[in-house]
């Protein structure tokens, strides 16, 4: 049991830890109330331990019967590195969710689902739901190199077709340019993109001339994740919107990605400092249970 005072008897125990790739991990956590309400496209705010940060992480699975919800993360900053040290049986301090608006899942016809790095995990939840809704689903898995590729079998199980791309060309296509050729050959009615901002920008630029409605999942910096702080604001179609309450999904053809990229970088020096201190202190876990 976690030890903070004044909380109902809720314990966010890690029931399953899966190492997806070198620094990519998937947790399945006990959270019955969240599991009962979670839908594809929504996210969680995870606080690993008392005094820790509030980290937004996209839901990549849920099971209302088992009372579990899962999320995946890439170890990049202090908090995600620390999360990586948690093992099966450990408890998280707090998990709040489901947050954000669920994805629109309908039968569109032919859907192109493009995922990049850690966001492949939640993308597959969408691929699965879109497939179940009767769509023909082509799933594209994007990764840095072949060592960072994961969940290929899961993708195959929930898609009609799976394509692979890597930044360095070490597996599958090199980069996302091949999508242009694909769209020249095949008709698609909708495109769903979840991944790094630069990748979402690139894919949105490719689909735009074809007039394919393109939905991107934005993961701006967040704190509360429920509409209070406004740090997740993004410009979409010239309007200021909040990633947490208006999103997290937006029209990729109307999103100001360049502004978002700049906003993502505003706390980089602090994030680096925090991360370096964590590593040089040997990843102290004395405050954890």
């Amino acid at each position, binding site marked *: 049991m976690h030890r903070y*005072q*004044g*909380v*109902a008897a*809720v314990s966010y125990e890690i029931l399953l830890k899966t190492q997806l790739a070198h620094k990519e991990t998937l947790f399945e956590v006990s959270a019955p*109330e*969240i599991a009962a*309400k979670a839908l594809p496209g929504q996210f969680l*705010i995870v*606080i690993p331990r008392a*005094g*820790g*940060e*509030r980290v937004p992480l996209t839901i990549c699975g849920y099971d209302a019967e088992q009372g579990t919800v899962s999320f995946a993360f890439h170890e990049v900053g*202090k*908090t995600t590195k620390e999360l990586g040290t948690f093992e099966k049986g450990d408890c998280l*301090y*707090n*998990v*709040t*969710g*489901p*947050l954000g608006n669920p994805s629109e899942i309908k039968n569109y016809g032919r859907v192109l689902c493009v995922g990049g790095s850690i966001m492949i995990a939640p993308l597959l939840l969408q691929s699965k739901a879109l497939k179940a809704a009767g769509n023909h689903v082509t799933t594209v898995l994007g990764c840095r190199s072949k060592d960072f590729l994961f969940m290929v079998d899961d993708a195959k199980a929930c898609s009609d077709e799976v394509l692979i791309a890597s930044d360095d060309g070490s597996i599958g296509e090199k980069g996302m340019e091949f999508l242009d050729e694909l769209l020249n050959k095949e008709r698609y009615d909708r495109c769903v993109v979840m991944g790094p901002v630069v990748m979402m920008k690139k894919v949105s630029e490719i689909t735009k001339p074809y007039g394919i409605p393109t939905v991107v999942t934005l993961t701006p910096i967040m*704190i*509360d994740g*429920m*509409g*209070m*702080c*406004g*740090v997740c*604001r993004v*410009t979409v179609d010239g309007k*200021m919107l909040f990633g947490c*309450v208006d999103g997290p999904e937006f029209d990729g053809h109307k999103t100001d990605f360049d*502004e978002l990229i*700049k*906003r993502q*970088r*505003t*706390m980089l*020096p*602090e*994030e680096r*400092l*925090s991360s370096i*201190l964590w590593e040089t202190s040997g990843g102290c876990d004395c405050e954890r249970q």
Partner: protein
Amino acid sequence: MPKQEPEDRVKNFREVALGYTEEMAHEEANRCLQCKNPQCRKGCPVDVPIPDFIKCITEGNYADGISVIKTKNALPAVCGRVCPQEEQCQKMCILGKKGNPISIGRLERYLADWEREHGVHVPERAPSTGKKVAVIGAGPAGLTVAADLVKLGHDVTLFEALHVAGGVLIYGIPEFRLPKDIVQKEVEYVQKLGVDLRLGNLIGRIHTIPELMESGYDAVFIGSGAGLPQWTGCPGENLGGIYSANEFLIRVNLMKAYDFPQKDTPIRVGKHVVVIGGGNVAMDCARISMRLGATVCLNYRRSRKELPARQEEIENAEEEGLICRFLNAPLEFYGDDKGWVRAMRCTEMELCEPDASGRQSCRIIPETDFTMDADTVIVAIGQTPNPIIQRTTAGLETNPRNGTIIIDDEGRTNVKGVFAGGDVATGAATVISAMGAGRRAAQAMHDYLTNQEPKEGSS
């Protein structure tokens, strides 16, 4: 009351006002005239029997004194610190006519602090009524409603979206005005009364209000506050270094970013901070920024006379080095090549005729643009209610202009069994007015619950 000296306090986050000693409390309490028809009590939004608790202090009977307060106010340590007493109880004090009213807030604080040191007494609950109530939001309004209803024998669940209870008392008001361990003690008191607190539960997402009603709650109180920040709408507002007051306050107060990197959530404040606004929130942001080492300029579009912040807070801030610049408004923000704010263009303003509410409006004086350096800007021009509950509760009547929930004098919404109060109904106001609204709603809810037919199948 003794305070930390300005040159010391501007370097730390410890409480500014140090509180009365016992001698000081007695001296102050002895000045009270014990009026037969106490005006001070009429000025208190939650009707605290003020002369009675002051009398207890003169008799050295502190335990009774705090019990007297708690018959009406579940959060005295908070109210003794952040209530605008000069506008309420103290404004009505007869001694005030001669310029020196009783320091009611400081005496209230004295008793609350005395109790914290000597052990908290928990009053008995009325026998169970078998009725279940959901209270949404563990801020001043929600805590008041929860405390009142649980004492009356109802079964109360308090849902809080954040991972810590207290609402604006935790995320909004800084440590140096209201220490967080004091808020936590007040929250623990409400729990000790028997309230079931659920943290990290965003109502509207994890459960909607219709779902709560279906699952067996007989009544719901919405006290979710006004947390959605307002913006200037000026070009460049999404540059790095431009914070909403809420972001700034949440980082510093709730997540303790002033202690970064010991705490994980960072804050970046440059050398020249501009705070836009003139309320207590603006003042808090300014005083935090000074404690983080910046030179701070407060830009307010009206004149000093119209500053809505408490006089005491303005004085504190100015003692600490705040520069005020009146009658100006922002027009545009300029960034550097990394997308961080570096300057802002403003215009001068002039006051014009009072509007319908009696408040002087103001207008731009053409061609008076000027530019000032700013590497951090904090926008503190108000908040509106968060839209999640309104969007997920079919038929709930709200004001289309600002999203506040429409209620009657007793806190009833147009949906049967659903009540609301505090900032979500009035727009951003004070802690004590939210508590007053909570008190009225709790009474109306109690009437509703006790006159209600028992639900089939409920115990």
